[in-house]
């Protein structure tokens, strides 16, 4: 199983309604359906990934996240997911607002650009980082809105978003005390579970 699924699935209530934005081949929704009995719908624009969803029996809507989510009712889902896609959308702030409107709680994962490898790459090479993990050149990357863990923390504060849980892991989705101690420097992937008006500790 994908390591991020292992982390995310703990936050999903059994039998809940889940919307996965940029659902890819539907493996996350299929996992949640099979293990958590969720009712899920995915949004995806790529034809082959959509076919993979249909193959798994996952409901999928062909829709571009950059064109808004006005077709979804307020609070029509329990959890809205956005995994490894935040950095690729045109208006991350508006999308997060829409997620908060549609879902009772939200989960976002993104690559942490504050990781020491990115910092060192820029510091020593003076070029935008290119790695196996993020293999794109600056001019043809889908990732147009990179941010760091600290940026996203600031964003949540400014937007009055309650972070329920923040998990930071390396690119194999491994958690460790040392990463937790220096999240912005050491984590490669940040996973946020958040809501608005959340009464903490539930």
């Amino acid at each position, binding site marked *: 199983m994908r390591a991020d699924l292992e982390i995310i699935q703990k936050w999903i209530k059994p039998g809940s309604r889940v919307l996965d934005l940029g659902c890819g081949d539907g493996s996350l929704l299929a996992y949640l359906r099979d293990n958590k009995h969720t009712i899920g719908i995915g949004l995806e624009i790529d*034809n082959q990934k*959509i076919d993979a969803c*249909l193959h798994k029996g996952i*409901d999928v*809507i062909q829709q571009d996240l950059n064109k808004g989510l006005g077709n979804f*009712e307020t609070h*029509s889902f329990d959890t809205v997911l956005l995994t490894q896609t935040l950095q690729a959308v045109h208006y991350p702030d508006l999308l997060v607002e829409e997620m908060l409107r549609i879902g009772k709680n939200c989960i976002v994962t993104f690559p942490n650009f504050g990781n020491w490898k990115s910092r060192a790459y820029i510091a020593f090479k003076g070029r935008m980082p290119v790695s196996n993990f993020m293999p794109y050149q600056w001019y043809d990357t889908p990732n147009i809105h990179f941010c760091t863990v600290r940026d996203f923390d600031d964003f949540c504060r400014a937007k009055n978003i309650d972070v329920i849980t923040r998990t930071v892991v390396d690119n194999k989705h491994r958690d460790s005390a040392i990463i937790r101690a220096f999240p912005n420097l050491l984590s490669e992937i940040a996973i946020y579970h958040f809501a608005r008006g959340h009464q903490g500790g539930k």
Partner: protein
Amino acid sequence: MPDFLPEDSVGIVSPQRFHFDEPLSLRSGKVIKTYDLMVETYGELNAEKSNAILICPALSGDHHAAGYHSMDDKKPGWWDVCIGPGKPIDTNHFFVVSLNNLGGCAGSTGPASINPDTGTWYGPDFPVVTVRDWVNSQARLADRLGIQQWAAVIGGSLGGMQVMRWSISYPERVRHAIMLAVAPKLSAQNIAFNEVARQSITGDPDFHAGRYRDHGVIPKKGLMLARMVGHITYLSDSAMREKFGKATQEIKEASLNLGRDLRAGKLSFGFDVDFQVESYLHYQGERFSETFDANSYLLMTKALDYFDPSVDYDGDLSKAFAKSDCRFLLVSYSTDWRFPPERTQEIVTALLKAGKQVSYLDIEADEGHDAFLLPVPRYMQAMTTYLNRVKQEVAN
């Protein structure tokens, strides 16, 4: 004529006539006392009767959806690209039912049938039938075939509207509702085109207020015009450019021709046919007028105009779907300007609002509204994948 039958064809098929004696009450308040439905089936119904798929026909579609009636047929049924062994609607696994709807002109009771009350043909007295009435008659056909629940009900355009009505009126009898190139109801522009078609027919001097058979004529010119205007709305601008635009001596690239192929190679400086598109439309209209009944055409366009399942629910389509218990697949086609993707998305939005399980595909296709009838690879692939899941469900 097929010299031999392709391996993925259902082969030679013959229609069956089902007679119904139980009167059918129509939405208009009128009643059809007895009626016949012409039906074709492909594949085998399994012992549990769980593998049946209903094909709902579009405006001019009839029961002959797949295969050939004889080796002399020039063309197979109207949806042969989709129905057959190994095709998306796989007759190795599914029992496929296709029919000619009431009011049609391919053998089911319609304006060209004899009215038992008068002993003469119905003509313009045949009651206006609606999508709801059709679906009620289709449910009786299902009863007759012993099918309690369809594995899937599938249709495009006007056929898709019947699928929608099935999911609303008979929620427990549909597992999967597949709607292609469909809208929740017609817009003013759609109705306007239908009205032009109707006026073409009723304005033909040979129409005789619908009793043209008594005069031994048909309103041929009117039907031709109706089909021509309809046909324009089925094709896209790009499809027409492609179809009628070749590279020539003067125009090196086909894309610069804009579909302006000349019929005789030069302009006539008269008012006869100059361009290929004109002669194509004439041919389509001509052929249609020889096979389709004018009164049936009027009825079909009215069924389209009247369709609006939200009328019983304060105009809120999502409420209409409240009891629906099936899974939905909707498909739209990028160049369809009769029912553009946004119109199909209105249904998707209503289904999401109703909390239903729905998948939606927006297919890039140059073929316009007609794309749902054609083997567009991406669309065929999606249908195959989706129906493979249905196949597995039915097998379990």
